[in-house]
């Protein structure tokens, strides 16, 4: 299990939201599922990050009322906050991906390919 660092968290969360609107718990599950359980974004990392993305205008939010299965239809349910990637968020995601590739390229420049051939049969 790898706990995501701040730099990667934004990229990961924006990528998850690029697939469609989602909410906190579903986002954390999507991250775990897409990384096959290797990535973990803690609650104290994810919710402040979502707030930051909202303040930056990278995501839009909306509230939904959720009722438990079999609940009294007259009763009120709990509230769910949905996050949706804004056009600005889509652009920011593209920038993050580009920056990520630049960083990869930089690191690659320091090391030879690890799949060197020729010294063994």
């Amino acid at each position, binding site marked *: 299990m790898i706990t995501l660092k701040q730099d990667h968290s934004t990229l990961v969360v924006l990528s998850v939201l690029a697939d469609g609107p989602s*909410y*906190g*718990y*579903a986002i*954390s599950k999507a991250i775990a599922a897409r990384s096959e359980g290797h990535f973990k974004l*803690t*609650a*104290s*990392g994810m*919710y*402040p*990050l979502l*707030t*930051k993305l909202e*303040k*930056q*205008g990278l995501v*839009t*939010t*909306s*509230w*939904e*009322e*959720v*009722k*438990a299965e079999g609940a009294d239809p007259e*009763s*009120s*349910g*709990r*509230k*769910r*906050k*949905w996050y949706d990637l804004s056009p600005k968020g889509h652009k920011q995601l593209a920038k993050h991906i580009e*920056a990520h590739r*630049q*960083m990869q390229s*930089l*690191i690659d*420049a*320091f*090391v*030879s390919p*690890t799949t*060197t051939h020729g*010294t*063994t*049969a």
Partner: protein
Amino acid sequence: MTHLSKDNPNPEPPVSRDGPAPHDGVDSWLDVLTSMLSLPASQRAQVRDELEDHLRSRVDDLLIAGKPEPEAIRTAIAELGETAQLARHITSANRTPKSFRRFAMNATFFVLAGSILTAGVSMMMPSAPQQQTSNTGSESVVAIDKEPSDESSFDSFTVDVRDATVAEFIQQIDRNIERPLIVHWELISDLGFNRDAPLDIDADPIPAGLALTILAERTEPTLSDSIAVLEKDDRIEIGTRSQFDRRTSEKRIYDLSIFTPEAQVIMRGNQMHRSAPRVSTENEMTRIRGLLQSHISSDAWVDFGGDIASATVLNTTLVVSAPVRMHTQIDALLGKLIEQHIAQLQEKEAHQQRMIERASGEFSQVRDSLMSVRMELLEKQEELKRVGISPFNDTADPEARAEAEKRSLEVQAQQEDLKLKERELLTRHDHLQSIIIQSEYEELTALID
């Protein structure tokens, strides 16, 4: 399920549910967390609703997985981590305005000798006389939107800002701090801060730091500058980021020699192969400089049209003139780059070690095969001799003679095949041997060094 405000850019949570609901472990935990949030009541309610949804969704999943409810609730809460830390992070995030540039530094630093304070410094009150302050001693810039663990003079007291103007709010701050407070009104008024304007914060007494953050949110978002606080030993100043940037600019030299190809040879020691470096040192230094400039306040660099910071490559060092806040970011980014760089080199080293081990294993196999081929060659040589001294050679029996010649030709053809195989094996043998000898030599050299 109904989306209540899908298109509303500033959504409010739905009205709380009517009627009493059973108070379980989730509610108890939410009560504690909410009490730790230093936020206005409306924000606290939203945070509570969102975390309740998270917890109850998780509890539902755990119940489906077969856990008893008390255990499911305990697990879901435990997974959220340490409550106080979560509350601090959420509070901090909600207090961070988008228009407020982060001065993430509490460290004390020294102003460049010879620089002077911006002219037109005035006390916070409109009628206060102009003041010119000295520029000696140490000073620090405190982030208004600082990290939760940071402490500043503004966290130790609360202010009542209901119906207050900006100037009255500043007055309250002035009364609560021991050091003189200097407000650079002329500069921050350019950011849209009018001292007589209402603060327009409808809240109970709140920490002064939080009120400052909310005030900063009013900064005109199209401006590239923002409000900032400079904390010095003998006073506190409220001014602009660009103003303090210029005053706190200093020159630092960063050693980038670890990124040179030569450093890689030293680090990789005995496993270093002797291939030529793919990039020159100069290109590497330029590349690192470009990376720092593109990731840290890119519009501040002289190279990119700014006038706050400059960076020059000198051999294997980078000379940077920049505000301390940028130096802090450079330190952090360079640290990460070096960390990744070393990890990659170690991975490469481990890979080459595995290659050497594989070469050694293959070398033994090739050597055995070579011995075997040479034995076969000797056998063929013996057979040729036997065919050559056969009595059939002297006999006039043409059939036997033809048979002997045929066999002789077959053996010679086999000999040629074996010699070809021997040459191939010998080439491989010599190649592997040179790799192993070289690695041993370099290991020895590294030990001597």
